[in-house]
């Protein structure tokens, strides 16, 4: 914006009224943008990433579900720390109870991840504790899909954000990741995607 000038006694002086207007315009613009961003943040959609797809496809084929024969799949990445947290997995259990039947069994897999530094001292006992708690969790919540303990830390890079569910869609050629606990509307979104 160009400054308007007035002429007074032949000298150019800035128009104070114009400057006040200009000042407020900047502030108005900033406030509107802030409000827009806050609104955007509150309704942010799940991550879609082709880089995620490529990083997973670079892993050994034996560690990921067979995507060729199935059109949609779920992969639950469960952080072991959430077992100790008491009630941290409520959102996952809630989602599981609403899943359509195929996604409770053959169309879902689970991976249990844990922090490597916790297990340095006594690996056998540590894995024993992890396996037992997983067994209890599966039994108590009647989880029907297989959950494997990631003892080789293959999925450790996915664990940084905690427990999550990843949706694979072959037709759409997309992968979506949702972190637990699910935000408002995400459960409905996942279920509508699966049905």
């Amino acid at each position, binding site marked *: 914006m160009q400054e308007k000038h007035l002429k007074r006694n032949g000298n150019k002086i800035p128009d104070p009224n114009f400057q006040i207007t200009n000042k407020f315009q900047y502030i108005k613009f900033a406030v509107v943008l802030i409000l827009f961003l806050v609104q955007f943040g509150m309704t942010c959609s799940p991550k879609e990433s082709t880089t995620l797809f490529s990083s997973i496809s670079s892993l050994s084929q034996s560690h990921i579900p067979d995507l060729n024969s199935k059109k949609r799949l779920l992969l639950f990445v469960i952080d072991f720390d959430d077992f100790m947290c*008491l009630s941290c997995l409520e959102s996952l259990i809630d989602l599981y109870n609403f899943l359509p039947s195929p996604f409770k069994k053959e169309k879902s897999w689970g991976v249990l991840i844990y922090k490597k530094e916790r297990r340095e001292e006594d690996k056998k006992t540590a894995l024993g*504790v992890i396996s*037992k*708690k997983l067994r*209890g969790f599966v039994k*108590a*919540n009647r989880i029907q899909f297989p959950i494997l303990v990631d003892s080789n830390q293959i999925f450790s890079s996915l664990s940084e954000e905690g427990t999550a569910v990843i949706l694979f869609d072959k037709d759409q050629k997309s992968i979506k990741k949702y972190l637990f606990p699910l935000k408002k509307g995400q459960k409905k979104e996942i279920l509508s995607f699966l049905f």
Partner: protein
Amino acid sequence: MVLLIRTFLIFVFCSQVPSLEAKDVYKIILEEILSIGTLDDDAIFQWVGVNVDLQKQIYVSDAMDYSLKKFDPQGKLLKKTGRRGQGPGEFLAPRFLDSSEKYLYVIDQNLPGIQVFNKNLEFIFRLPLQLPVVDIKVLSDDEIAVASLLSNRSGAIYIIDAEGEVIRSIQFTDKKSPFMMDLVSFDIGVDGHLYLAYTFQDKVEKFDAQGKKLWSQKLLKVNNVERKKVSRFVVPTEILYKDVALDSSERLYVLGGSFSKNKGRDVYVLSPEGDLLTIITLPESSHCIYLDSQDFLYARANEGITLKKYKLHFVYDSKGS
């Protein structure tokens, strides 16, 4: 006259003999005598609360499989009840428990009220209570003491009846503290004395049955606890004292938290007068401690998969020796 003199002399003589009660505990040695729950069995997955009745049966609440379990004194599982749910006898998040002669009282973190079971683990009724309960002590079937988290009325132990009505309260502080700062773990002695340890303040205190403070101790010399903002609340982040328990001599056992030398493992033992007698260090960290009527100590192991029972061997130090 002679009889009077003799009596006087006997009295003087007896008062010079050191009393056995004058001996203080110098050291306590733990001897593990029972371990319930191994890595291979399905006895316990993640126990939270424990209680032992007069018949030495052991009751445990298991948060992982939403259950209440009963073991015999040798650690054999006798019965299990409960599953995930909100109905009678169901749990979402079972936590601490206590018992009377007839019943077991179980707190659920996510459900209002206290569930009451008989000793056969059959659901009897739900004690209606809206207050979220953080600690419980059953005085009788008509009087249950609870510590609660309340935003505007705290600093008290509430005694409730079988209808869930507050019949009286023991005010242990009238100073208004920030949110959660006056949370306590407590126990009540046979004569109604209240012993409590603040969760987020360095204070261990004793009150008489009328609510008069008898003593207050600061064991860890901690002045301030870090607090952080979570949503619209500011909450403390580190625990000073996790739990308390009384033995049959009313010695107080206080389980330390993050500020102890051995975090979650140091148990401070105080005399009924508030003197620090000794410190026991558990082999593994625990979230709680429990002492049964025969002074056996129970604590956690293997991250909640195992319940350990210890015999306490007291080593005394005679005064003047």
